[in-house]
């Protein structure tokens, strides 16, 4: 949940709203999905309406980098090295140490916060919460194909941002 919205206080509020939604709605819960799926759906809906409200209040949406295409990383078609990396992919300095120091986390959080909402939802459910794909698709009401495309874009964006920070360390 922490990764779902950029704003910690907003995240807390969404969690509280979700619990209220669960308490109010539990009598109507018909067991057609698992309780967990149902709760995630309430959480997502609350988060969607509250982040929409926040961005209206703030007078605009957050910064979205829609173009996450990797095309520029490779030699173009027609070039003798077409489809190969233009620049070598350099190893990141000791990922374990980065993880322990919290540095990796900080960069990841920042990159997740920049994602368009649809991608942030997918990466939060799948990678942060570890929800299985079929269940996550049910929560979000999207096809597995759409899910995979969003997940790919989200992960690609995060990697690109991290590479930007870490390659220059």
């Amino acid at each position, binding site marked *: 949940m922490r990764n779902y919205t950029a704003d910690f206080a907003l995240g807390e509020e969404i969690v509280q709203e979700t619990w209220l939604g669960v308490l109010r709605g539990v009598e109507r819960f018909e067991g057609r999905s698992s309780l*967990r799926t149902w709760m995630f759906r309430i959480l997502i809906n609350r988060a969607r309406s509250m982040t929409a409200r926040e961005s209206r209040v703030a007078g605009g949406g957050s910064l979205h980098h829609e173009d996450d295409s990797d095309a520029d990383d*490779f030699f173009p078609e027609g070039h003798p090295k077409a489809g190969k990396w233009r620049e070598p*992919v350099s190893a*990141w300095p000791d990922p374990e140490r980065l993880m322990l120091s919290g540095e990796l*986390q900080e960069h990841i959080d920042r990159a997740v916060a920049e994602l368009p909402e649809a991608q942030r939802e997918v990466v939060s459910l799948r990678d*942060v919460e570890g929800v299985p794909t079929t269940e996550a698709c049910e929560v979000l009401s999207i096809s597995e194909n759409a899910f*995979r495309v969003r997940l*790919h874009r989200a992960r690609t964006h995060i990697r690109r941002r991290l590479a930007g920070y870490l390659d220059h360390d």
Partner: protein
Amino acid sequence: MTEDGRLEMRCREFTAAASDYLENVLEPGLRKAFEEHEEDCVNCHEYLDQLSTIIRGLRAAAHDDVSDEERAKILRLLNPLD
């Protein structure tokens, strides 16, 4: 395709398939081409490593404020049949 009919993958296609590979949803032919490319290409090997690091980092974020034990207990309560 190579001359002997194998599916050949370039770095660009490798990166496009990497997330699906980690989700274990690549069809067998693609999976094989993907793994062969990774063995031969230092850059793509590194790329895949970076993606895995990110996914581990994302997963760790969920565990920041709740202990593994508490988390398992909550998930069991939510979904007793799992």
